[in-house]
């Protein structure tokens, strides 16, 4: 009896330990990145141009490209993902086509990001002869994010209670009117959480972009032409640290890593606030 009590306590301690380890790991990670990187983040660094061979380069164009590619890829992912998600949740009948669509979404979700990169390279760089371009990168990136968007939308919509739908139909609305004006607003907070997730992934993704958007930046800044090559922050971090030739690679990579983490943290916070606002205004029913 006493022995089993001891064993119980020991195992309970192990579970506590696993929780504590994970929390401490995150603290260590953030501390190491931010303590090294934050001192580097001067205005000159944030808005300056990167150098290929010399010291003292900045990351201005990379920050711009990151958000430009994020925006373009979201413009592709969100409408198509929403559409497919709504279809699966509300329109799809239980037949073989629906099953194939669901299977495709799941398979797409499992495709490694480097394979999306190679696919993007074949299609945009080689077949369409676009070369490395912001548009090609954004398109490949949006394919990577599509399955997540579809799944999130589908789940958000199916979790809306049926009473709302029935009440709306009872008022004589058509199916689309019900979806547009009743179901989507209720499902919105969950959909926005999903968009937050894929936006975070889009900011941090690099394997897709190296061989679609390239590792160089254009001579003009800001470059709005989507056909120009555009290196993003994550690609820059990889390039500088793993391949690059600049002498102050440690400084630039520390700063870039800190910048990425800061962007991700701010992003998380802003989306949380938006969600709170929406919840307060639409879910008080």
């Amino acid at each position: 009896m006493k022995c089993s009590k001891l064993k119980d306590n020991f195992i309970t301690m192990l579970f506590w330990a696993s929780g504590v380890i994970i929390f401490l790991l995150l603290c260590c990670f953030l501390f190491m990145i931010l303590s090294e990187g934050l001192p580097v983040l001067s205005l000159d660094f944030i808005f300056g141009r990167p150098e290929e061979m010399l010291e003292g380069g900045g990351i201005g164009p990379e920050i711009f490209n990151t958000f430009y590619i994020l925006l373009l890829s979201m413009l592709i992912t969100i409408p198509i993902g929403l559409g497919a998600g709504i279809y699966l949740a509300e329109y799809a009948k239980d037949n073989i086509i629906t099953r194939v669509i669901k299977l495709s979404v799941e398979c797409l979700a499992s495709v490694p990001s480097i394979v999306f990169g190679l696919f993007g390279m074949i299609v945009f760089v080689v077949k369409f002869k676009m070369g490395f371009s912001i548009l090609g990168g954004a398109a490949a990136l949006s394919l990577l994010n599509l399955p997540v968007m579809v799944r999130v939308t589908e789940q958000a919509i199916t979790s809306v209670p049926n009473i709302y739908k029935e009440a709306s139909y009872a008022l004589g609305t058509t199916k689309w009117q019900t979806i547009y004006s009743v179901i989507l607003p209720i499902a919105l907070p969950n959909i926005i959480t999903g968009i937050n997730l894929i936006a975070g992934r889009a900011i941090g993704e690099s394997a897709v972009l190296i061989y679609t958007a390239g590792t160089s930046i254009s001579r003009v800044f800001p470059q709005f032409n989507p056909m120009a090559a555009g290196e993003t922050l994550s690609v820059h971090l990889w390039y500088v640290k793993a391949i690059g030739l600049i002498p102050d690679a440690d400084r630039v990579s520390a700063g870039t890593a800190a910048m990425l983490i800061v962007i991700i943290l701010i992003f998380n916070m802003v989306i949380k606030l938006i969600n709170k606002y929406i919840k307060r205004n639409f879910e008080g029913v």
Partner: protein
Amino acid sequence: MESKIIRGKNTYLTFKNVKTAKEIEKIIKMLLTACAIFMIIVIFSIITFVSKQGLETFKMVSPIEYFTSSYWSPFEEQFGILTFIKGTLLLTGLSTLIGGVLGVGCAIFISKFAPKFIKNILRFTVEIFVGIPSVVYGYIGLTVVVPLIRRIFSNSVGFGILPASLILSVMIMPTVITISEDSINSVDISFEEASYALGATKIQTIFGVILPCAFPGIISSIILAMARALGETMAVQMVIGNTPQLANSLLEPTSSLTTAIVMDIANTEFGSTWNNALFMMATVLLVISIIFILFARKLNRRSMR
């Protein structure tokens, strides 16, 4: 409140516009169907484009040599990818082991032991872990883990499978935690109560009742984590060392499928045998991860029943 929920301008149908409403309905249904069909088109074109390019390899190299030789020297026309396959398998196995144990432990902790505020802290921690980009994980591996290993094992350069799988195990942990926690939470509370009523302790209940019930969900979380570890490129590339040689220990530089692709594709001309061999590696990755996903799907369906 109603005005906020029903915001559409044409929410109420009048007799006059029933016909247009019906037409709009039809067009929208078509658009939505097109979006859904697009998903099928994407996955099929990825599979065909990548594998078609990959299969070109076998015009020059025999498949048997390709898969069973570990001699990779493109300049001598030697394309054996066994080294990379072994690297990938070792990496995936090791990181799943570490990340899986820690992740499942943490999932049980969150759902059964942690007080509410610790629960919230840990959920937030997991969210941040998901958000950290893979290059940043690689950066930490390169600046922290590799020097650390170099200091502990003085005869090693620090690069290799071990640092890569340590970093990977942290990267895949969020997947394990979130999905396992869901499946642990979905075990019916009456089972737990019945177990307590029989005089079982909390630990006995967890190992004897809850975990067996949640088992399919936990396994599918681990398979999904494996799929992620299998396909991870950048973080691994930064710490594995990138030499196409078979590693005799976990602390020697080697390569995996993904890192070989990302390192070499820039040096090769599209359509050359070397390039095609890399596309074939991508095909192998694609096939393995699709098999994983089908397996996880089957398990999930069984647990639903």
